[in-house]
């Protein structure tokens, strides 16, 4: 059937999402379709509702209206296939636990009630830490981590969820260049594995380099689609209200994007 076909190629299908906080709309009537296997940036000015969009899809924020389908099913049915990397600042890093312990929390969903993580989860966590380049920090108390290391620990926790769809809230916020590289590498691996990733992103300059899809958001959806089509100066001006000091995004971006695509094709 035709709709089945659509389900197979669509990771997220969101219609009419509206979120209000004390009568003030934070998100207004958002429709969004995200095909499978893309890296998508969520871009917009402060207060545009980027984080709220993620959280409302995940059910963390109550919606006034809207319908969310993930892989063609209600979110509750496919939860196990969805991973979430919250903002670094959303937890207390002085919590008494180790990096390894934190990463193993990514396995809690698959473990289910009461069962404790065992040797397999431990090994998975160590492998995930290896992949993000901080395996030597496994035994550290989490309060001893730098900002970049915290972000990598969060990323490792998401890795062992082994999801098909990831939501990441500002993973590049305040991290060092090495960490940024490490995150980009993981994102590329995700794309190669056909996983879909939605990332709340702040740095407009790097959008064309890092992502292939984008949604421009400012309470309403300004535009969404492939970066090459949608990430235009005009749309940016619509989203940011003409205040962007941005040197011709399309030109600057499309070149780099092209390079990335060629590399991908060669692999």
């Amino acid at each position, binding site marked *: 059937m035709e709709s089945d076909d659509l389900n197979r190629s669509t990771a997220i299908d969101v219609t009419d999402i509206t979120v209000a906080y004390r009568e003030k709309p934070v998100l207004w009537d958002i429709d969004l379709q995200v095909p499978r296997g893309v890296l998508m940036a969520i871009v917009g000015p402060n207060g545009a509702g980027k984080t709220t969009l993620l959280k409302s899809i*995940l059910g963390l924020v109550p919606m006034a209206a809207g319908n969310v389908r993930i892989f063609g099913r209600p979110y509750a049915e496919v*939860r196990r296939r969805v*991973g979430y990397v919250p903002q670094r600042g*959303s937890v207390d890093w002085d919590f*008494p*636990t180790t990096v390894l312990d934190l990463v193993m*929390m990514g396995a809690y969903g698959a473990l289910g009630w*009461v069962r*404790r993580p065992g040797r397999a989860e431990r090994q998975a966590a160590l492998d995930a830490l290896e992949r993000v380049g901080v395996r030597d920090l496994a035994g550290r108390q989490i309060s001893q981590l730098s900002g970049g290391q915290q972000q990598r620990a969060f990323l490792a926790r998401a890795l062992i969820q082994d999801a098909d769809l990831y939501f990441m809230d500002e993973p590049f916020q305040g991290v060092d260049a090495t960490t940024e590289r490490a995150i980009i590498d993981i994102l590329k691996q995700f794309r190669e594995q056909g996983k879909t990733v939605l990332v709340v992103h702040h740095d407009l300059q790097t959008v064309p380099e890092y992502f292939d899809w984008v949604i421009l958001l400012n309470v309403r959806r300004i535009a969404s689609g492939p970066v090459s089509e949608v990430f235009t100066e005009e749309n940016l001006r619509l989203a940011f209200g003409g205040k962007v000091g941005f040197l011709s995004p399309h030109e600057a971006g499309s070149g780099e994007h092209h390079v990335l695509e060629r590399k991908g094709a060669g692999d």
Partner: protein
Amino acid sequence: MDLLSFFSDYTLRTVALGAALLGAVSGSLGTFALLRRQALLGDAMSHAALPGIALAFLVTGSKAPLVILVGAGLAGWLGAWFVIKVTGLTRVKEDSALGLVLSVFFGVGLVLLTWIQRRPDASQAGLDSYLFGQAATLVQKDLVAMAVLGVPALLLMLLFWKELKLLSFDPEFAFSLGYPVRRLDLLLTTLLVVAIVIGLQTVGVVLMSAMLVAPAAAARQWTDRLGVMVLLAALFGAAGGMGGAVLSSSVRRLPTGPTIVLFISALVLVSLLFAPNRGLLWAWFRRLRSRRRLELRAVLEDLHALSLQHEDPYHSHRTAVLRAMSEGHGGADRSLAELESQGLARRVGADRWALTPAGAEEAARWFGGGEGRA
């Protein structure tokens, strides 16, 4: 009181066991309250228990421990529910909601208690001991009631360890994994109510929240592992509870609650001051050491600068000059002695100092310049 009489004295043994049990339960569960920054919720819930105690007595006419504790638990739980509803449905912030619930419930409880005490019959005697606690009144029946409530609470905590840990650290992530966060929250709140309720007779509603917060706060100082922290908090709670209860029941007219809290506070104080890494003493020592290192570097830099001026790396200088240059960071004599012991500077005659070859090399590496001549 010697050890023998402690174990042979039935009353004392009951009191000590009861206080230890309540300390262990409230200490370990309080750890989760502390980590979730819900310390004040415990305070509100324990004060909110008072009208429950009074009403339970008024309705049933009984002072049986289980009856009173169930009344107290329901009222405490209702208080917590009010806090959640008030913050969720109105613009009142959580701290105000906590203050409101605490004072309103406690006020109603006091009014009811006063009214009960004015009544002519004598059956109400002793109900007011729930304010500040009276461990001496504990009998075996109470101990059984405490164990019946406390042991299952601890077992539930151990059973849902992983879930409670995740809830305390990252509730939104827990939700995204599919855990029913609100129900877990409810479970933890209920366990806290149980911890409060079993302490009411011994510690009293006014100071019970200290039993939740203080052992956990002390334990946090000594460890970075949740498991160890819970265990330590349980031990601290049990030790403080036992010490305070035994002391207050062997000295006449000494209320138990305040005595226990004094014991626990002493543990907290020691932990805040002396715990390795997190303790204040440790931090002070670390600061001192890094200041000494900086002073040492400053004097080395001074010697280096002087030798550059004289175009002779080993030129010696009077101590007074170095002292004058050290004005503002101080400790020139001490630093020079330390540099000497490290072989970086040497004494020339009675009152002059010069860099050694090792010192000149070290200084050149730190501050640059003059390498060519060394």
